[in-house]
């Protein structure tokens, strides 16, 4: 089980959180301007990296805030957590 440093609450056990998938998927501002393919890409296509991954997490059983996390999918190292709207930290793969 991870120990996740919620940017609002501090370190808490993983059981309080749920992962909400890849971070930084912005909803297109004008959906009608997109082709079906582009819209489908926004809807369905997600990265599946072996390495650093930007993820959105929800402190479901805590402060209920969403935040972003930079986590390594092999070592599970959590390099950074940052609030929604803050820039993603640099990734050295």
């Amino acid at each position: 089980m991870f120990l996740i440093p919620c940017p609002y609450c501090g370190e808490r056990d993983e059981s309080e959180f749920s992962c909400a998938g890849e971070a930084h998927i912005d909803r297109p501002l004008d959906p009608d301007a997109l082709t079906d393919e582009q819209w489908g890409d926004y809807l369905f296509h997600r990265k599946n990296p072996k390495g650093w991954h930007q993820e959105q997490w929800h402190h479901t059983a805590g402060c209920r805030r969403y935040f972003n996390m930079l986590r390594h999918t092999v070592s599970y190292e959590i390099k950074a957590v940052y609030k929604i709207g803050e820039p993603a930290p640099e990734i050295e793969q």
Partner: protein
Amino acid sequence: MRRLADGGLIDRNQPVEFTFDGKTVTGYKGDTIASALLANDIKLIGRSWKYHRPRGIIGDGAEEPNALFQVEEGAYTTPNVRGTQAEIYPGMVVNSTNAWPSVKFDLLSVFGLFARFLPAGFYYKTFMWPQKFWMFYEHMIRKASGLGESPRENDPEHYEKTNAHCDVLVVGAGATGLMAALAAGRAGARVILADEQGAFGGRLLSEAGIVDGQPAASWVEQMVSELQNMPEVRLLKRSTVFGYHDQNYLTIAERINDHQSIAERQGPREKVWRVRAKQVVLATGAHERPILFGHNDRPGVMLASAVSTYINRYGIKPANRAVLYTNNNAAYQAALDLDAAGVAVTIVDCRSDADSALVNSVKQRKIQILFNHVVAEAKGAPVSAAVVKQLVKPGVLAAGEKIINCDLIASSGGWNPAIHLLAQSGGKVRWDDAQHCFVPDLIVQQQRSAGAANGSFTLAACLADGLQAGAAAATAAGHTAVDLTVPATDQTESFVISELWRSPNGPKPWRGAKQFIDPQNDVSVADIFLAAREGFHSVEHVKRYTAMGFGTDQGKVGNIAGMAVLAEALGQPIASVGTTTFRPNYTPVTFGAIAGPEIGGTLFDPVRKTAMHGWHEEHGALFENVGQWHRPWYYPQGDESMDEAVNRECLATRNSVGMMDASTLGKIEIVGPDAAEFLNRIYTNAWTKLGIDCARYGFMLGEDGMVMDDGVTIRLDENRFFMHTTTGGAAPVLNWMERWLQTEWPELEVYMTSVTDHWATTAVVGPNSRKVVSAVVEGIDFDKDAFPFMTSRKGTIEGVPVRVNRISFSGELAYEVNVSAHSGRMVWERLYAAGEPYNITPYGTESMHVLRAEKGFVIVGQDTDGSVTPVDLGMNWIMSKTKDYLGRRSLERVDCTREGRKQLVGLLSSDPQVVLPEGGQIVNQASDQIPLPMHGHVTSSYYSACVGRSIAMALVKDGFQRQGETIYVATADGAMLPAEITKPVFYDPEGERQHG
């Protein structure tokens, strides 16, 4: 008796009587089951699972593959207890496993005679065909091969879990672990020291060495008492660290009571510690491995180190005449121990010579050493002799043999560091060519291995290693290490080994006497060679094909040797064969310990009950689980069947008045200046113009355009909305809305609160509902025009504020009365009393489903399945054309507008008494042609007493255009039920009743 006159760490003043296979056996306090049996000269303790060969005790600890017992009977019974670790107590009931009818006379040992027909993969190969016989085969195989019996009664014991944080967790309290704990503790670190045994000391308890000028066992006592006096050091004995997870999260099973008689037990049987450690020191020691030879599974074949343990720790003379078979000089200690215990011993050493202090002291004792020799085979069961052969050169035997009569063959093929937890933590190992074992290499967590676990096999090195690791861990955790000296010891012999995994037995190693690798699973050298010949080259595949290491011991004795044999069969170095994966648990953990206090009771999953639950129980309701909620299902009267009860409830509701507990529907308050705009984006329809105290039905789509949830939302005030969700959707919908608000629309000022549990809701439904509700609620004008359909009013009942919503999920005139949950039952009872003149009838979820299906109202998740759009439901009217909302763009995708989508229709079966099966597949022809294209499925289906016939809803391809056509519902028994496609409204199609 084989007990020595003195010595050992047992308490000879405290005899302990227990039973083994029904016979009384006496040991001493401090004995394990295994040591007590050996002291009583009981060597045959079980049968192997495949060939049912007789088996004896091999080891002295967690690695033991054979000495597995069924401890206690009835509800207290525990299978597969390792006799080498389980302490005896008065009255303990111990039974052997895996033998029928008894260990001495085993009917199934006939399998051993057919061993050549039971090779690796035998079950896969033989019982494959015909497939339908597999169940029968499996039954017989399981009966023949069971490893102990699960308890059949509820566990009367209880279990605990606890969380702990520490600076340094030291795993293992041998010489290394004690020094590490001392160094970390002296530095001021908060330390947990956990050891699986009933006493601290590890191998020091088995050895006759001197530490710090005193016998090892008394040095251990001194260390333990010093550690006990440190307030920040916690000592856990009988505590197995069984899992090493991410971020230094480790799990420990503490067996609090298993060493005491059932009558003496107090408190929980076991406690699982969930520890988050800043630093971990793995002082897990090493497991000795045997050298493989013919019939090496016979009772009387043991590990050399275990022999030392039984002599020094338990005061047992394990044999009259022994052969010690070795490829290293550490095992010579066992020869000295045997000699001291009065056992005549012959050493068989595969090496050409050996020279060290230890070897020389053996030579001085005139103990016979046969260099350049191997043990080819054991004779007798239990062992009565060893067949010894000379080596001409590595792998090649001279002609001729010596027979040495003996009742014990002890072997030592070297040591395997216990790298299990290191591997679980993500660490990697490398092959050490000098010591012939895997040692820790890459470390990925805040952790260090020390002592034998790190490949340091001498006591002097372990003491120094432990001190250094403990100090380093404490420093890394932010403390300052103090200067300590490493205690002196006489055990300084360096470890010297030459490679030998098995006795050579000719060019075809699969011929002749079986050399066992995994005695628990009957995997032999021949099986590994067979697997390699059949093309299994990956060690993971070989493991699965042969079942090597699959037992309760997880291959702690045999796996590394098995990998070496595979390397030999493939002609590769061991390093390139590698190890199998080490997974939790290190040793088996009871289900009770894992379940903890949740076992068997209501703590496993919360049960949610509404404020009126007690009333429902008192009025005979049967309940159904909806998520965690217990909802009334129906209220049978007398000996009514469910169908009869539901028919009565529906008719009473449509003809007069019914009432239902609607408290479980999700309720979310949405507040803020941008609340209406927020709803505009979440729901498909528009909310800006909804008047205060007005209600509107809304649909929520996923961004993929599929229906996700539905419900009525009421505007309580300009900036305050009250949203209903489905019962199951309450939590996911709140998460969903918060996600959009927080991540995409932070500019909106909106606040959301779950209020599901705050409000109790009574739905009063039917043509007489106005009379009932208006008789109870004060402060509301119930005139049909003053309080129209889809509006909401505030009133009171006996001074308690209520909010009455005129909304309907049945198509009837209906009111939902909401009140603070504290007054929920009072309001329900007032409404029930007021309804009695109208025969008010409580109904449950089953009647609710029928009533809504009569009206064609969908239930999200029953009539939809995540692939259904509002268009597919024929609900285009609910989709705004003038604004964007979640999922809107997806509805224009080609796939959502194509022909052939499944659409919601009604079905009327040709026989009005036939209720179509829900989930039944819909086909166009009543044909047995294969394949028969499927065109949809039945989603909801009931008998409707109000309509006087069966009704159903279904999703059918292009269903809107197929009104009036006849389709067929295929049933499991092959019948084809004809039905006509209709509109999905069966009652009051104009919808007049709800406006009444």
